[in-house]
């Protein structure tokens, strides 16, 4: 192999550069954000907490399709005997009253930027 010294040094620098975020943070992903509790002291969500944490996006998509495309606007979501509408603005955000604390903290941590709030109005945006 010609110029093996140069190539190997270059490769080493490249690998170091690419893995910079990992060794710079010592393989630590940082503190997992603590999600804010519901504002009205509710103890139950529409689904178990673990399920909501990992699959709320699927649920929101299902709700969207039910309401918008199937036209099912019934108050079909039942929690603790109370009935709720399938709605992000009118159901979710009534308990989780802060988009900043409830949505953004985790989304920033996970580096995802869903486009919900381009149209839907966050509780902070209206007074």
């Amino acid at each position, binding site marked *: 192999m010609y110029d093996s010294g140069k190539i190997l040094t270059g490769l080493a620098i490249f690998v170091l550069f690419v893995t910079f975020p990992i060794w710079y943070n010592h393989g630590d992903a940082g503190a997992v954000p603590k999600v804010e509790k519901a504002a009205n002291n509710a103890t139950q969500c529409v689904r178990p907490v673990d399920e909501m944490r990992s699959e709320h996006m699927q649920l929101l998509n299902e709700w*969207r399709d039910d*309401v918008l*495309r199937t*036209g099912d*606007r019934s108050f079909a979501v039942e929690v603790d005997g109370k009935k709720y509408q399938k709605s992000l603005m009118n159901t979710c955000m009534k308990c989780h009253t802060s988009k900043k604390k409830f949505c953004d903290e985790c989304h920033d941590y996970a580096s995802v930027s869903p486009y919900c709030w381009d149209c839907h109005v966050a509780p902070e945006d209206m*007074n």
Partner: protein
Amino acid sequence: MDKKRRDFLKIAGVSTLAGLGGTAVVDRLVSGTSPVQSEAAKHADNAQGGHDSHQEEAKSGNRYGMVIDLREFKKDPALGDKVVEVCNHTHNVPDFPKKKDEIKWVWLTGYENAFTEHSQNYKDQGTLDNEVLVMCNHCDNPPCVRACPTRATFKNADGIVAMDYHRCIGCRFCMAACPYGMRSFNWRDPRFALDMNKINKEFPTRMRGVVEKCNFCAERVGLGKQPACVEVCGSSKAIVFGNLNDPKSEIRKVLKENYTIQRKPSLGTHPSVFYIV
């Protein structure tokens, strides 16, 4: 390899015949069974029947419609603006001062603009002086729905031509397809022109780059309420809303008792909005 001209001509002739005959056989087999063709044939039948043909078919399910009594709007000239205002507030419709940025769901326009197919000759002063309330016609045969490449606009089970803004890619084919010009495009972020402290907190806004229009208050009708524009007219019955497929509904009664017209009936779109002039 040695090919004689005689052999070549024979082979060419036979393959030409096979080609022509083959396509004829395939056409014969396919014709009538293709869903596209039979659908097209159905539409052609509808168009031939004129704009009344759909009323003769007994249809199940809902088809919401509206009767706008322009006589009531003549009686109360402030009513039209009131209707527009309440709709704009209910659906967070922004008010852009520049005409090219305008977003409109329901608005007032001249008789000659609303009813272009009807005779404009020697119209009476009352008709000329009073503007006509126009909005999406929620056609039974909506051209915008056929034009939409993402099915962002679609006809729902209630006969309402609805928009799913999550799916709209802003191509504006629907705007080109709508023969009434009832759709608006968000050239700019609508929140620039909305006072976020005064918006309707139960309804989203839109984002830049989507097309929007009247949704027949699907979000209210779904909850058993009347559309906002109908509600604001109160007891005047200037706008009557109801199920066109239900022969006992109030709207059918109004339609039976009054002479009504639709916008551009010759296009075969079967509008669900009727006018008493």
